[in-house]
């Protein structure tokens, strides 16, 4: 596995943990969003990280595989394979450091426009990754879930995903969500359709629809995942400064972290930097610090 590049925080717009004194430090983030990591994991934390102010749910936009491969004169498939290793490492670190949920944006709905060869390769890669990882998930207590528009995925991938979800259902150490063929806007639209259907069936009236009812219809809130649908920290690699239709509703209050590092190079040092940055953020949720 390639070593990660050392992430110089050269991006002019990134807040770093050593940024201006204007930002006040809070000793405890507002409840109920923050929670303590499992006590056992605290001893495994690298210096600089405090268990009580780690994000409970981290989301990653794994951007930059193709660019990474192009920079090495290789086809994009090479970049995606390297990206796989970066994801596996991030999953391992998340579990070790006591992060409760990790959501990875593997394939957006917009990505269907990519060349068929690349798309077919990616579908095959996802199937292989899920198949190969089930044993490890079972061993490490990782619960897998796949969200996104399944109807466009190859039947074999749909089957593999369903079986892996079923097999890991009772795990509880880390909730891993893979967003494949996912689009934040489409998630909102499908929630809207589902509510419209309920209204049509007379199960509820439009006046009953409020934010919490709506939030319960989103893909990320299905099943027993309703406790942590919203990421506390959203990391996007490769220097792109936008959300690109990822967890639209769910990232309303997420701290965003952008890094120039390309996804295959994202490793422990980069993850640590993102988590340290998160720890230094002043999360007010519209209120004031006093």
């Amino acid at each position, binding site marked *: 596995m390639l070593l990660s590049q050392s992430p110089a925080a050269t991006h002019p717009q990134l807040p770093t943990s050593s*940024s201006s004194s204007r930002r006040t430090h809070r000793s405890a983030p507002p409840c109920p969003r923050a929670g303590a990591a499992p006590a056992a994991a605290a001893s495994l934390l690298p210096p600089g990280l405090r268990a009580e102010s780690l994000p409970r749910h981290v989301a990653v936009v794994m951007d930059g595989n193709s660019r990474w491969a192009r920079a090495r004169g290789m086809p994009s498939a090479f970049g995606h394979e390297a990206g796989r290793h970066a994801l596996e490492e991030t999953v391992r670190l998340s579990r070790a450091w006591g992060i409760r949920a990790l959501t990875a944006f593997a394939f957006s709905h917009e990505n269907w*426009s990519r060349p068929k060869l690349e798309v077919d390769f990616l579908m095959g890669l996802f199937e292989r990754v899920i198949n190969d990882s089930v044993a490890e998930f079972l061993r490490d207590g990782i619960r897998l879930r796949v969200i996104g528009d399944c109807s466009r995925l190859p039947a074999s991938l749909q089957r593999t995903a369903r079986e892996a979800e079923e097999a890991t259902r009772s795990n509880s150490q880390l909730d891993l969500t893979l967003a494949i063929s996912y689009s934040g806007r489409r998630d909102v639209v499908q929630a809207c359709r589902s509510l*419209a259907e309920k209204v049509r069936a007379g199960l509820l009236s439009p006046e009953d629809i409020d934010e919490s*009812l709506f939030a319960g219809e989103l893909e990320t809130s299905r099943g027993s995942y309703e406790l942590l649908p919203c990421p506390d920290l959203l990391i996007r690699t490769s220097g792109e*400064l936008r959300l*690109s239709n990822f967890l639209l509703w769910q990232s309303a209050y997420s701290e965003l972290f952008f890094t120039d590092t390309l996804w295959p190079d994202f490793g422990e040092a980069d993850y640590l930097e993102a988590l340290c940055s998160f720890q230094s953020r002043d999360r007010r949720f519209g*209120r004031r610090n006093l």
Partner: protein
Amino acid sequence: MLNEKKPDEIIATGVLESLQNFLRKCAIAVLSYGPMPKHIAFIMDGNRRYAKSRSIKEGSGHRVGFSALMASLLYCHEMGVKYITVYAFSIDNFKRDPTEVQTLMELMEEKINELLENRNVINKLNCKINFWGSLDMLTEPVRLAAQKLMASTAQNTGLVFSVCMPYNSTSEIANAVNELCKERRDMIQGQHTGSCNGLTANGGTHSDISVADLDRHMYTAGCPDPDIVIRTSGETRLSNFLLWQTTFSHLQNPDPLWPEFSWRHLVWGILQYQRVYPYIEQNKTLAKKQL
């Protein structure tokens, strides 16, 4: 309130301002060679911290912030940006200290009334002013003033200045869903009463709800998505602002607090946008294909 100035100070200030104006016009000329954003959204963060750092009363931070807003509006207009949207007050901000909320409401009422008094100038600029949000949560004087200002500028076709107050994107989306469900229900009921020859009504209308349908019911209907979202004071989060509309927007978080935001920072922001413009446009085109 002007302080007494010596004549040579006044001349020096005048020369400095002329120089700044000249530099600004040069910067605009350079920028206009590249693609200009049509819509810029601002999260005006940092007023209170500004007041604290200068040891002035907290309410004054918001007042200076308002001046910065008017200045930014004019700079954007100068550069040809047609749509400007600002996050003035979040629904979450009602959870703040009641005194601060009261101060903000009074400031908003005062400023809206000032704009109403100057509506000739606004109409001359051909500026349309929108207030987006759950207006029924505002105190009555503020709401009435806002509605009056909206009505008096509704026919303008130039610059579009939208003020989000009190606003939450999740409320906006829930509201849009609510309205869309009502619309569908009324449509189905209309079909049921209308069909009197035994044919069943088309009950499948729920399944063809699309992104465009939701777009229609957002406060921002008819307005293009923001090209750039600028959040001042260095914070990197959206705080429930235009989540639906900023899917492909370029997110920027310059360090200056909102009252410190000036035309230099705006020029820099637009330059950043122009740098990545080809890539953003490519992504937007691909995304539209998949809708």
